[in-house]
């Protein structure tokens, strides 16, 4: 299965990319995607404890199921306003 991964702010700068496509085994969960990203993007390491994760625009726990074509966003601590 394929998911689209979006990186924002520090995550975007550390990953060197705003958006990538990630290919995962069928029936993967959010945690599986994060494990793959941690392997592919070691520069994100210090950020992981601070990241929230959104699936198709909603915050999800790491155990949430992924679906084909889903949009997974890595969200550093927010600082709008």
């Amino acid at each position, binding site marked *: 299965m394929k998911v689209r991964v*979006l990186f*924002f*702010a*520090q995550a*975007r700068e550390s990953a060197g990319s705003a958006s990538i496509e990630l290919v995962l085994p069928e029936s993967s969960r959010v945690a599986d995607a994060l494990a793959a990203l941690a392997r592919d993007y070691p520069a994100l390491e210090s950020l992981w404890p*601070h990241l*929230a994760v*959104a699936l198709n*625009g*909603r*915050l999800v726990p790491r155990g949430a199921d992924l679906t084909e074509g889903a949009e997974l*966003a890595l*969200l*550093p*601590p*927010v*600082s*709008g*306003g």
Partner: protein
Amino acid sequence: MAELLEGPIPVERLLAEATRPDCGAVTLFLGTTRDRHEGRKVVRLHYEAYRPMAIAALEKIEADTVGSFAVASCRIVHRLGEVPPAEASVAVVVAAAHRAAAFDACRWAMNEIKSTAPIWKKELYEDGSGGWIEGAKLE
């Protein structure tokens, strides 16, 4: 009906839209770029957002504000991209029958924006370097 936009926030239009004959109070908050932070000179701020989720978050704040306070309307506009010193990055406008609720609601909405909207701010310094502001983890 929250807005994310690049370029100056149309404050006058927002105030005109908020003002209603059944309301006696309008409060406006503007968050503006400061030219100093923790002793460093800030040349400008850069804002980015996860746009669809940010719009949804801001519209939830607008609705929650009207649902939680005795106010008639709440509108939020956030600017993205680069914001020079003394220009506004965010505007919150609340209209209410009476002023106490208008103040309470405007302040609450602004706090919610800071803690729940997927928007990020980076300070850009004189030497060309920059730093993301330590913010609130989304929950």
